[in-house]
């Protein structure tokens, strides 16, 4: 476990839900922090009675949504520059159309399964002119799924949460690898 993870865990244990929510906000805004690990830990702490699960869930949800919204608006702010640079490309227009059609699924899945892609997806959603209320809707569902599923696993496995968290982290990497492989195969077939 890294010194940063230990520092975060100590502070979440000591100061509870507000620090948990703040950490998720900072991470969702783009700072690489081990948040899935922290969510599993929060579930376990809740089972042990170290802190109350409901405020942690609510503040965590608010923090994650605020962080994602910051990315979205950063993307929206940069839209003019991106359009000037890439707006004339067929691939950009095609990507925009696809994102408008399937972006909801991408937003939902990157909240809890392909978490490494959450930040780029938030930025792309903002840059591509995707509707903010729609983004928010999928974001709320996705972040709630993340907190309930992983926090729930921490709650179920209690003091053994570290082992479970390790499996989740590796499984996340595997899911991302599969997604990249599928994207590669798709592009290969299209290029032929």
């Amino acid at each position, binding site marked *: *476990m890294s010194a940063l*993870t*230990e*520092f975060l*865990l*100590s502070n979440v*244990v*000591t100061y*509870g839900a507000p620090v948990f929510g703040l950490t998720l906000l900072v991470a969702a805004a783009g700072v690489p922090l081990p948040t899935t690990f922290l969510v599993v830990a929060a579930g376990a*702490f809740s*089972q*042990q*009675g*170290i*802190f109350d699960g409901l405020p942690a869930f609510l503040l965590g949800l608010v923090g994650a949504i605020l962080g994602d919204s910051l990315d979205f608006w950063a993307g929206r702010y940069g839209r003019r520059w991106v359009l000037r640079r890439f707006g*004339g*490309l*067929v*691939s950009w*227009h095609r990507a925009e159309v696809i994102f408008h059609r399937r972006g909801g699924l991408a937003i939902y899945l990157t909240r809890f399964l392909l978490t490494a892609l959450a930040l780029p997806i938030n930025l792309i959603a903002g840059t591509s002119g995707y509707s903010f209320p729609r983004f928010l809707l999928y974001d709320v569902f996705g972040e709630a799924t993340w907190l309930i599923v992983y926090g729930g696993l921490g709650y*179920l*496995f*209690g*003091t*053994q949460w570290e*082992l*479970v968290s*390790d*499996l989740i982290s*590796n*499984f*996340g*990497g*595997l899911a*991302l*690898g*599969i*997604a*990249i*492989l*599928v*994207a*590669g*195969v798709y*592009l*290969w077939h299209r*290029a032929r």
Partner: protein
Amino acid sequence: MEEKPEDSIVLKSREPTRIWIIILLAIGAGMVILFGLRSLHSYRRIHEAGVRPFALHPDRRSPHVATDVEELRPWMTVPQVAKMYAVPEDYLFQVLNISPAENRHKSLQIINREIKPGVKGYVIEKLKQAILQFQREHSLPEHAPAITP
């Protein structure tokens, strides 16, 4: 001579080249192999450790109270340890001979650095002995008392 419509958008095509697709496939395959093996290893570790939802340690009488002192970690705080093992906070602070007011927000690692800088793991070892002794002398309650902030 060909005429170009003035108000039509001129779209340029820039398809990903084969080399980039091959790089993408190689990264994907590498990640699948690496994380696939690591996931398998993690699953085996969980299986070997006998981890189950709400699993009870042989000595544990309540799912809310821990008894295995090997679960102590340097990032934990004294109130958290007290809560986990259903041991009074004051008793643990007394064992470590430190003030509760000044140390309740510090991690065990920081406390260790302050009271025994040269001896790594001193605080954890001391707490393990104290918890085991307390649990031998007292029966475990069904629910541990709440942590006061």
